[in-house]
C-alpha cells in the first residue's frame, strides 16, 4: 500500500533521495533549494542513509565534485537554484560532453538581475543548450515521481547524460500538499544501484575521462551527444511505463488536459498548469473548447509529438516563464513554433510571457488568454505575437 502524506516539494525530493540512497551528494545552499541538502544531511546524521555528503565552498565545486564522484563510479547528485546553476555553467557542458549521468534537483528561481528570489524558469531555460535532459514538475507529487525516475533515465547505457529534475521555486518547493509516497522497498528495487561498465576507480581498466578534443573530434563528440539525447526519448517513456507499474501514475513527454477536442490551447511548463486547468474547467462549462498541453520533458524536445497532438487546434498560446531577449519570443515559443512550422500547423500560435520573477498568474488571467485566442481565431482582433500576462501598463 502506498503511503499518504503531506509534504512540500523540497521534502518530497529529499524523501525520494532518502529512498534511493545515492552514493555521494556534494551541495552548496541557495534559496529556494537549500532544504533539499539540509534534509538529506539530516537523514545522514540520523543514520537513515549512508550517502556521503560533501559540504563544498560553491556551486562550481558542488557540480565538480558531483561529476568527479560520478566518474569515479558513484551515483551522485546535487541541488541548486538560480545563480547557483549559473555558477555551475561551465561544468554543465562538461558533464554532458563527458557523458556523466549526474542528477541535479533544480528548484527554479529567477536569475539575478535584478536580484529576485522567486520562481521563474530563466535558470534552467538558460541552461537548455548545455546538453542536459530536463524534466519539469507541476506539483509536489510530480516532483517526487520525476525524481525517482531520474537516475534510471540518466544512467541508461544508451543515454548516459546528466539530468535536471526541475520544480517551481516556493510554489511547489515550499507549499505543502497531499502526496502519495511509494514504499521504500519498491523504490529501492525500481531505482537499483549504479554499476557503470567503466569507472575511474576500477584498477583492472584505467581510463581517461574528458580528453582534449580539438577540431578533428569536437563535432563528432557533439553528434554523439545528440544521438544520446534522441535515445533518451525512448528511455524516458520506457522508465515511465515501469514507474506506472509501481505507482499507478502515468507519465510521458507531456500531459494533455482536455486537449483532444480543443479549439484553443495553452502550452505551459510547471506549476502554472494547475491554474490553467481550473480556467479550462470554467470555460468548458460555458461551452468553450479550451485545452492544455503541459510539457514535462523539455530536453529532449518532443516537437514532433507536440505538433501532432496540437494539429487540430485553431489557436495556441505558448506561455514562457523566461525571457530570451531575442525580441521575437521566448524559449518554448520559438522552439515549439519551429516544430509547428516543420509539421505544417496551419492555425495561430502566439507567445506570452507570464510569472517572470514570481509575478502572479491567476485563473482570471488564464481565462483572458483563452479570450484572446478566440478573438484571434475569429479574426475580431489582430494577432499580437509578443504578449505579457500581468504586466502593468
Amino acid at each position, binding site marked *: 500500500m502506498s503511503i499518504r502524506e503531506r509534504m512540500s516539494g523540497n521534502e518530497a525530493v529529499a524523501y525520494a533521495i532518502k529512498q534511493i540512497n545515492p552514493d555521494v551528494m556534494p551541495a552548496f545552499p541557495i534559496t529556494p533549494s537549500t532544504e533539499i541538502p539540509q534534509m538529506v544531511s539530516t537523514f545522514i546524521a540520523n543514520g537513515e542513509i549512508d550517502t556521503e555528503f560533501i559540504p563544498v565552498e560553491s556551486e562550481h565545486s558542488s557540480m565538480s565534485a558531483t561529476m568527479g564522484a560520478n566518474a569515479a563510479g558513484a551515483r551522485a547528485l546535487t541541488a541548486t537554484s538560480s545563480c547557483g546553476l549559473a555558477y555551475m555553467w561551465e561544468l554543465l557542458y562538461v558533464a554532458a*560532453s*563527458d*557523458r*556523466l549521468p549526474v542528477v541535479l534537483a533544480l528548484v527554479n528561481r529567477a536569475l539575478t538581475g535584478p536580484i529576485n528570489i522567486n520562481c521563474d524558469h530563466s535558470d534552467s531555460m538558460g541552461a537548455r543548450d548545455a546538453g542536459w535532459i530536463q524534466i519539469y514538475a507541476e506539483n509536489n507529487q510530480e516532483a517526487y515521481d520525476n525524481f525517482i525516475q531520474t537516475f534510471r533515465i540518466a544512467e541508461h547505457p544508451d543515454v*548516459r547524460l546528466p539530468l535536471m529534475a526541475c520544480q517551481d521555486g516556493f510554489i511547489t518547493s515550499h507549499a505543502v500538499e497531499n502526496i502519495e509516497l511509494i514504499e521504500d522497498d519498491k523504490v529501492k528495487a525500481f531505482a537499483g544501484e549504479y554499476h557503470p*561498465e*567503466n569507472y575511474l576507480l*576500477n584498477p*583492472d*581498466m*584505467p*581510463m*581517461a*575521462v*574528458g*580528453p582534449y*578534443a580539438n577540431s*578533428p*573530434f569536437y*563535432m*563528432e*563528440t557533439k*553528434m*554523439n551527444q545528440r544521438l*544520446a539525447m534522441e535515445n533518451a526519448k525512448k528511455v524516458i517513456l520506457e522508465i515511465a511505463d515501469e514507474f506506472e507499474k509501481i505507482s499507478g501514475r502515468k507519465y510521458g513527454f507531456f500531459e494533455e488536459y482536455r486537449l483532444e477536442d480543443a479549439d484553443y490551447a495553452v502550452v505551459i511548463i510547471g506549476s502554472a498548469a494547475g491554474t490553467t486547468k481550473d480556467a479550462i474547467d470554467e470555460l468548458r462549462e460555458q461551452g468553450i473548447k479550451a485545452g492544455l498541453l503541459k510539457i514535462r520533458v523539455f530536453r529532449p524536445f518532443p516537437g514532433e509529438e507536440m505538433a501532432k497532438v496540437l494539429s487540430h487546434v485553431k489557436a495556441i498560446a505558448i506561455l514562457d516563464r523566461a525571457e530570451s531577449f531575442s525580441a521575437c519570443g521566448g524559449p518554448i515559443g520559438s522552439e515549439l513554433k519551429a516544430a509547428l512550422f516543420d509539421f505544417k500547423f496551419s492555425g495561430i500560435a502566439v507567445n506570452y510571457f507570464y510569472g517572470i520573477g514570481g509575478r502572479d498568474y491567476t485563473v482570471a488571467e488564464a481565462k483572458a488568454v483563452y479570450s484572446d485566442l478566440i478573438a484571434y481565431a475569429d479574426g475580431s482582433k489582430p494577432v499580437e505575437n509578443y504578449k505579457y500576462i500581468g504586466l502593468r501598463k
Partner: protein
Amino acid sequence: MSKATDITKINEHSPYYDITPGDQIYGGGGSKKFNTGEWRTQTPVIDWDKCTQCLLCTPVCPDSSIPVSNGRREDFDYDHCKGCGICEQACSFGAITMKEGM
C-alpha cells in the same frame, strides 16, 4: 568493462560512431602513443662532451622526456619533448642548448 581503446584507430578520419561516448579512453598509457613532440617550436640538443651525467636535468622535465638507463641519461625523447627549455636552465655545464624549430 570495455576493452582497452586502440587510440591508433581513432584519428581525424574516424566517423562519429567509432568514437567512444564522452571521448573516454580505456586502458592506461595512451599518452605514449600521442606524439606531442610535434608541438615543439624549439628543440633541446645535448653536447655529450660537456654533459657530466649529474642528472639535474631529468627530474625537472615536465614531460619525462629525458630517459635514464643504468644511472646515465640518454638522448631526449623527441616524440614527447615540447621544447620548454627548462632543462637548458637546469644544466650547470652548458651542455644543453635550445635550437630554433623541430
